[in-house]
């Protein structure tokens, strides 16, 4: 049974399947015992959770104490001056000023906000069907970006064809 069919089954149970998907699921339910058993399990899970959200935990703080921290933070934020808007011309000025002026200009440039260096690593996942997981291994000192494809195997980067020699351009 393919994952794709299992997800259609789930969508059907959740009322999110298209008419075509619903027909496909109904056919599978009629002809595939394992599929029908899985439907039973998913229905059961849904049924157990429905209306059975765990008891809401109560806030462990008194009304006054809890709100005092909120109002203090609001007051603090309202007292702060609004941050200066980053100038879209800052980068352009940096390019124009640096080769033309001298030490004084360098001082000015160094004190301008460097927008390209936020110090935060960022990842943009450009394939909708995949999930990108990012972590840093502190033991191996390695930054890892793992691309997991949820629906179809990721077809885009292939493993080597073991029948051919690899193309390698050594740095040595």
């Amino acid at each position: 049974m393919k994952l794709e069919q299992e997800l259609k089954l789930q969508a059907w149970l959740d009322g999110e399947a298209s008419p075509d998907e619903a027909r496909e699921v109904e056919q599978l339910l009629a002809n595939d015992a394992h599929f029908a058993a899985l439907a039973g399990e998913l229905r059961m899970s849904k049924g157990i959770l429905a209306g059975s959200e765990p008891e809401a935990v109560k806030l462990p703080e008194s009304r006054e104490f809890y709100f005092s921290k909120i109002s203090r933070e609001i007051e603090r934020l309202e007292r702060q001056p609004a941050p200066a808007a980053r100038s879209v011309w800052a980068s352009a000025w940096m390019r124009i000023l640096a080769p033309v002026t001298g030490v004084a200009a360098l001082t000015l440039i160094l004190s301008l906000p460097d927008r390209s260096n936020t110090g935060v690593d960022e990842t943009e996942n450009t394939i909708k069907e995949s999930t990108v997981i990012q972590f840093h291994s502190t033991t191996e000192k390695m930054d890892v970006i793992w691309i997991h494809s949820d629906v179809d195997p990721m077809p885009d980067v292939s493993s080597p064809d073991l029948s051919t020699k690899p193309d390698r351009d050594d740095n040595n």
Partner: protein
Amino acid sequence: MASPLDYPAATDVQLVAAAQKGDMLAFEELVARHRDKVYARAFSMVRNEDEAVDLSQEAWVKAWQRLTQFQGEASFATWMTRIVINLCLDHLRKAKRQRAESIEQLDEELGGVERQMPVVSLNPSEGLERTELRKRIDRAMGQLSYEHRTVLILHEFEEMEYKQIAKVMGCSIGTVMSRLFYARRRLAGLLMALKREENR
């Protein structure tokens, strides 16, 4: 002269309107009314009391700052819940980036184990009283990864559609569907395991 607002008796709509004009007492009444629910949602996601308190307070501060954006398209409680859910998701994502994790652990979260699980055919909630069932669900939810727990909370308890969940979690609808699928399967397995444990 307009009569002063009777805060405890006022509706949420009246309180929001007053708070939007800067009435801090009206805002305090809103906090008092909805603080438990907002805190509970934060706790269900992060499973840590201190963090849930901080995140829920941060949500209230953000709500104050964005009050003028609230137009009443959803209830105030729903709007607040969305704010705290987004803060919790940001918090969980940051925490996950800082932890070293093995790829096997991640693989499990992504469904490697669940794909091999046999179908659970017995009902693990059979014979349980509601309170007991809720406790068991709570224990099982605590053992899920944050992605699995979040998607279950958003779909089953916040009753959000796949599309809305995808937007909130910042992922594709396909990702939501597979996470929800694996989360449900994992939950069924965990509930069965808890049932077997308690029957011993």
